[in-house]
């Protein structure tokens, strides 16, 4: 019995981390398959999600051109809530945090949506492939002004950030390396750079709406001179710079540390990494080895992580602060039932922003630090209000299923307050709470009186209000 319960808790932990949490039905199905098979399915999703783009565009015309952030972030929320490949979507969030690109400057969110889609298709592949695609991504190039990076007149923005924030981290390269790296990326820009640049800077959708960008390499503008970058010399182009970067141990350790922070436990903020050791150096070693053994495969780093003791251990359970996206998407997946047209996706996206994580609108190229940063009084209130709003309609399929399970599992004990609280915590996670929290919840459940003879909407209301109380606990903000 204990072993079964442990399996269930471990599986729920995997599905919370490698996805957005599981509904009770999803958890049952995963337990049938077993941990390893479930992990394989997560790492190897089949085909694309079946997103009814036609219906979305017909009703929500702003999700046709995807120019505005409200539309583009609602569009992404829809995908995350309905996806059958949750790890793939989590990787989109992961890369978006690292390669943080803001629609705010670009004045159109469509190109950022295209970038996210690139992460969706290639984000569990080879890191040198990902880094090369990022270097060709029109949104990234314009975000870091690489269309201003010319032979004989370099702009170091991309050359710097690719080293500082996207691969190796501060302290692992010199200012000279930054210059040489920038020279390697001269000529990497978008088609019609002048007109696209001015439209962006002037924030104008005139005359005929926005124009999406396409990568272009201009060899005439490329500096073909000899360069010495991270100890290697030659007529280095962008592809060479990416190759050299990916060979470096610092790159592997930097990515590993990000993976640890995103999937295992809260790390220190990135600016502290140059002078603060990792929370778990052994975990970083394991992931770094997987990186090099597999030829830079992100999927293999993930597999090494999710099969490791440091991931499975009790110490890693609920050791991360839930990001706004995880909070919003997890709650919406639990409630179930998005029908088109949908206001909920816009609400979800707005709420993410209110909680401090505006999708496609990171505060800067440094992204969101996450961890404890996510929680303050204001964002806490936003979390509680959102969860209450979404988890209140018993006719939503996910919520209906939760209530029915609670009804079934507590009928033997006449729906006592203790059994109700236990059942709700079980079905929402399972979530573990401190004793003090549990007794407060039981006291709260008691206020609904004797539910032993209750059924129908009175019972629904009692369970719903208990669930809303649970999602406002501190424990629920951890994942």
């Amino acid at each position: 019995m204990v072993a079964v319960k442990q399996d269930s808790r471990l599986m729920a932990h995997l599905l919370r981390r490698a996805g957005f949490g599981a509904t009770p039905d999803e958890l049952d199905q995963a337990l049938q398959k077993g941990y390893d098979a479930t992990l394989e399915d997560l790492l190897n999703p089949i085909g694309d999600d079946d997103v009814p783009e036609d219906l979305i565009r017909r009703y929500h015309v702003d999700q046709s051109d995807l120019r505005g952030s409200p539309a583009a972030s609602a569009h992404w929320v829809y995908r995350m809530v309905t996806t059958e490949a949750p790890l793939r979507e989590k990787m989109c969030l992961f890369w978006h945090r690292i390669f943080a690109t803001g629609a705010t400057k670009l004045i159109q969110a469509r190109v950022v949506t295209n970038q996210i889609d690139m992460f969706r298709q290639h984000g569990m592949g080879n890191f040198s492939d990902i880094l090369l695609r990022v270097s060709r991504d029109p949104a990234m190039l314009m975000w870091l002004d690489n269309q201003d990076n010319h032979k004989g007149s370099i702009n170091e923005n991309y050359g710097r950030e690719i080293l500082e924030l996207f691969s190796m981290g501060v302290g692992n390269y010199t200012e000279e390396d930054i210059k040489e790296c920038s020279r390697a990326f001269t000529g990497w820009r978008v088609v019609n750079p002048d007109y696209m640049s001015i439209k962006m800077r002037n924030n104008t959708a005139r005359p005929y709406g926005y124009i999406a960008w396409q990568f272009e390499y201009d060899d005439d503008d490329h500096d073909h001179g000899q360069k010495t970058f991270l100890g290697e010399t030659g007529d280095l182009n962008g592809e060479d710079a990416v190759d050299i970067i990916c060979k470096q141990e610092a790159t592997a350790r930097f990515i590993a540390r990000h993976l640890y922070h995103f999937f295992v436990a809260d790390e220190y903020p990135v600016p502290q990494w140059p002078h603060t050791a990792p929370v778990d150096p052994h975990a970083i070693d394991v992931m770094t080895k997987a990186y090099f053994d597999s030829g830079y495969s992100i999927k293999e780093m993930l597999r090494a992580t999710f099969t490791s003791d440091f991931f499975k251990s009790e110490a890693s359970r609920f050791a991360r602060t839930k990001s706004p996206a995880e909070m919003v998407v997890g709650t919406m997946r639990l409630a179930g039932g998005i029908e088109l047209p949908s206001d909920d996706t816009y609400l979800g996206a707005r709420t993410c922003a209110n909680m401090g994580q505006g999708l496609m609108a990171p505060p800067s190229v440094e992204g969101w630090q996450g961890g404890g940063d996510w929680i303050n009084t204001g964002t806490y209130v936003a979390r509680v209000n959102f969860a209450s709003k979404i988890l209140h309609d018993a006719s939503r399929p996910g919520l209906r299923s939760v209530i029915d399970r609670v009804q079934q599992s507590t009928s033997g004990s006449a729906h006592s307050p203790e059994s109700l609280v236990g059942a709700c915590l079980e079905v929402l996670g399972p979530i573990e709470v401190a004793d003090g929290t549990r007794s407060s919840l039981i006291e709260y459940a008691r206020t609904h009186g004797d539910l032993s003879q209750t059924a129908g909407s009175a019972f629904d209301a009692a369970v719903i209000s208990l669930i809303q109380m649970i999602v406002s606990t501190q424990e629920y903000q951890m994942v």
Partner: protein
Amino acid sequence: MTTTAFKLNYLTNVGFCADFGGRGFMMPTAMAIRSDGRIFVASRSNTTALRVVGIQMVSRDHDYYGQIGERGTGDGQMIWPTALALDGNDNLYLADESLNRISRFDPDGNFVASWGTTGRGPGEIDGPSGLLFDRDDNLLVVDHKNNRVQRFTKDGASLSTFGSQGDGDGEFNLPWGVAQDGDGNLYVADWRNDRIQKFTSDGRFLAKYGESGDGEGQFNRPAGLAVGSDGNIYVADWGNQRLQVLDPDGRFLTTVRGDADLNPWALEYLHAQADEERARSSYVPVFDVDTDDPSEVSARIEPFFWDPVAVAMDGSDRVYVLETCRHRFQVYEQA
């Protein structure tokens, strides 16, 4: 006997992105052309540029006459405008698929009346997406979520209905636009069945044209359509981002991808923005794209149709194609 190939020549385009107000449109979804040449375009806009939700009035010669209506749920207001039609007295009718109601405006643009009850029952509507006055001056409404076409009097009294959900003859899957030919036959854009269906004026099935795909005679979510005086059928092949023309028997004639150049409003705008005008002098609008997705291609190539949603014809058989994401319509004539 020689036959000349069917060809359409581009004439002009009318429109401008009016997200900050002023002349132009914002995510337009419907149009209607009055006999005196005044053109009505319904702008649906996005979630932030709300002042431009309404019906703008223009002419083919780039006159701008102002806006009728605004965003809201009250009389003469709208949330999700979807279709426009003019009756025999030049009153303008608007379908709103969020409010499930039909509103009437007089020829001067004043609100007159509205009707509509949400539901599945007789005379009730759910998602009115196409409007057309038949030869008896009764109003046909494409009741898309109910997968049927209903006929009403101008005041909303239910007269008849045809269609049901499915992919068989006379069945629909979320139909969108409707048109009629010179004999009063009806044509419905059977959106999710990727085809056009033809009916007699009282709704008896006659023929179906097209199948899913992006080839000749194939459609990807056809949204709107019009029929010329020669019986040719002009279809806004929305998902394929093109105009497709069939002959009266449904045989393929041609497709058009879009040819918009800078219209007078666009030119005036650029003359007032020196830096944009200068940058545009080196701008190449049409280039080789590295994507197959037609919607993404349209997003990158400014002259192309982007979400062509409606087609209208004027008294001289000119063809007008309205594009939601480029905030304009393009005008063609037969060569």
